[in-house]
């Protein structure tokens, strides 16, 4: 019973996102459009909202899976690519590439930016002879986030106004003007990386329990850790490449999903993280567009507004448990 909650909610959210908007369509028109390929239903599905909603679902799932992987790997609910500065690294790389007039493919630029940020965080948090506590990674990641946002605002102040407006949208996280190739791109990346993530299930399971145990089971702990972290960074970068560094989705997805689905085993938890991420991003985009009539806010504004209170609540809970 519980396992059906998330898929059902996701389907409902997708349907609602398809129907609500400047040009409202009813369920029958949507069905008619899907079956016959003409009418307003088909127009909405094919051109207006179909690609946007599919991009939202794919990017949200990628962010959710990325957050679930990090949180499992570091055994810490605060470990997420958005908190640790990886998504802002990707976002900055994209803005810099656009400002410099480079014609590299956006996903590659995003992946490079995210990986550079992640390696920087790992290196700067590393102390010879000590194991790195996850909270140090989180704090160092925040510091990297400060540096990237300073560079981003430098880019914003040196660009001409129309490009600055575009860059501001990008840095906030937006699903505006998404086409089918964006959706295809993020889904392809998600599929490949999800398969890779599933191949690391056993090492991840062992690492979550104990890295000594993992070594005992014949797993090379450090190598597995790096591989899983790289997969998670790339997942986040794939989402940033189509939607910008949307804040807090990766942080919230896994805890929300696991609670809704009551998932216990690792695979179930990762899956519910991905589905919850898709659900959150789809609903946030719907809310951002419908909040003010006539104005389409970027989705990052909505996730920022309800993600921040979540983070505060999570902090006070961790505090009570004595984790901070």
């Amino acid at each position, binding site marked *: 019973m519980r396992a059906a909650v998330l898929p059902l909610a996701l389907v409902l959210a997708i349907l609602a996102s398809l129907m609500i908007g400047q040009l409202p369509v009813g369920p029958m028109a949507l069905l008619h459009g899907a079956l016959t390929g003409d009418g307003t239903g088909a127009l909405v599905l094919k051109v207006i909202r179909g690609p946007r909603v599919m991009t939202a679902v794919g990017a949200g799932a990628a962010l959710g899976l990325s957050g679930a992987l990090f949180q499992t790997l570091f055994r810490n609910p*605060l470990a997420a690519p958005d*908190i640790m500065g990886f998504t802002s690294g990707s976002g900055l790389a994209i803005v810099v590439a656009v400002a410099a007039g480079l014609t590299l493919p956006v996903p590659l630029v995003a992946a490079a930016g995210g990986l550079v940020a992640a390696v920087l965080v790992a290196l*700067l*948090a590393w*102390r010879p002879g*000590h194991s790195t*506590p996850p*909270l*140090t990674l*989180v*704090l*160092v990641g*925040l*510091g*990297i*986030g*400060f*540096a990237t*946002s*300073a*560079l981003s*605002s*430098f880019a*914003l*102040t*040196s660009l001409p*106004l129309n490009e*600055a*407006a575009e860059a*501001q*949208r990008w840095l*906030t996280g937006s699903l505006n003007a998404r086409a089918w190739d964006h959706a295809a791109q993020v889904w392809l990346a998600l599929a490949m990386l999800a398969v890779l993530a599933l191949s690391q299930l056993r090492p991840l399971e062992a690492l979550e329990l104990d890295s000594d145990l993992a070594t005992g089971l014949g797993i090379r702990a450090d190598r597995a850790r790096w591989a899983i972290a790289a997969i998670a960074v790339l997942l986040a970068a794939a989402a940033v490449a189509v939607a910008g560094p949307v*804040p*807090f989705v990766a942080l919230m997805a896994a805890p929300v999903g696991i609670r809704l689905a009551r998932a216990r085993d690792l695979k179930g938890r990762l899956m519910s993280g991905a589905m919850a991420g898709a659900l959150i991003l789809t609903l946030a985009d719907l809310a951002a567009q419908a909040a*003010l009539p006539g*104005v389409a*806010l*970027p989705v*990052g*504004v*909505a*996730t*920022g*507004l309800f*993600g*921040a*209170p979540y*983070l*505060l609540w999570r*902090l*006070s809970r*961790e*505090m009570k448990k004595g984790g*901070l």
Partner: protein
Amino acid sequence: MTRLLPALLVLFLAVAASLVAGARALPLVEYARAFAAYDLANPAHITLMQIRIPRLLGGLVAGAALGIAGTVMQTITRNPLADPGILGINAGAAFTLLLGGLLLGQPDAATVTLLALPGAALASALVFMLGGGMRGDAGPVRLTLAGAALNAMLLSLVSAIVLLRQESLDVFRFWVAGSLAEAGARPILFMALLAAGGGLVALAAAPRIEALLLGEALSRGLGTRPGWVQAAALVAVTLTTSAAVGVAGPIAFLGLIVPPIARRFAGSSLRMQLLVSALLGAALLLMADALGRVVIPPSEVRAGIMTALIGAPVFIWLARRVRSGAFG
């Protein structure tokens, strides 16, 4: 007094750098002449009096204010990572100020600048409460993340407003990067009074804050009422941060970097630390501003971006030590 001397010397050098650095090289003799016989037809005099002097004054006010704010925050929360920028107080001040400025269309007027006060007050109360910072028992991680959350939320609100009014982006993107370049247009004198008020509150409360650090029970025994001391600290932080934001926009990390350096110069007395922080804060901001003017001529990097680029590595360096026992 001898403890203040090194800081005064640094400030003197920073003032000199601030007057000299820039796209236009001014002959030294013109500095004297501009004061003795100001000549409106002389471009060197105009550069000095209309651009460099207001920048210098703005830097003195904003830098000193942020130095004091940082020292008060780090002391009362016992947290080496506390800073008005990191903990979202800059963002609170900037948010209400910008909101008023956009609605009234005049972000730099003195009356509008007063709108920074409620935002800063609310943000500091919120972050101290949520972060558990008031009792000083919150770990640095929690306080910093609470600040990050507050920053993110306010930033979302601000970008919603900015995106609703496209024309405001042009003002906003420069404003939010924090700089002394527009100090001439800002109500410097008014903000200086505000900052001085905050500084005086901090100086007056300093012995009580020190008593509070001994522990709540002991400080009560010494006749200190913790609630009042904390409120005074909040007032001091609010006044100084608002003044800095009003002059220079949100400038982060100055309040992070200055206090630990000030402690080295000033020794253990909180009053002396506050005075040295004010001097060093002004010096550091003036130097960041001067540096930003010369790194990529003829354009310039805004002072807020320079302090962030200097401050982020310092933050990371401090963060590395947080869990290794250096801060308990």
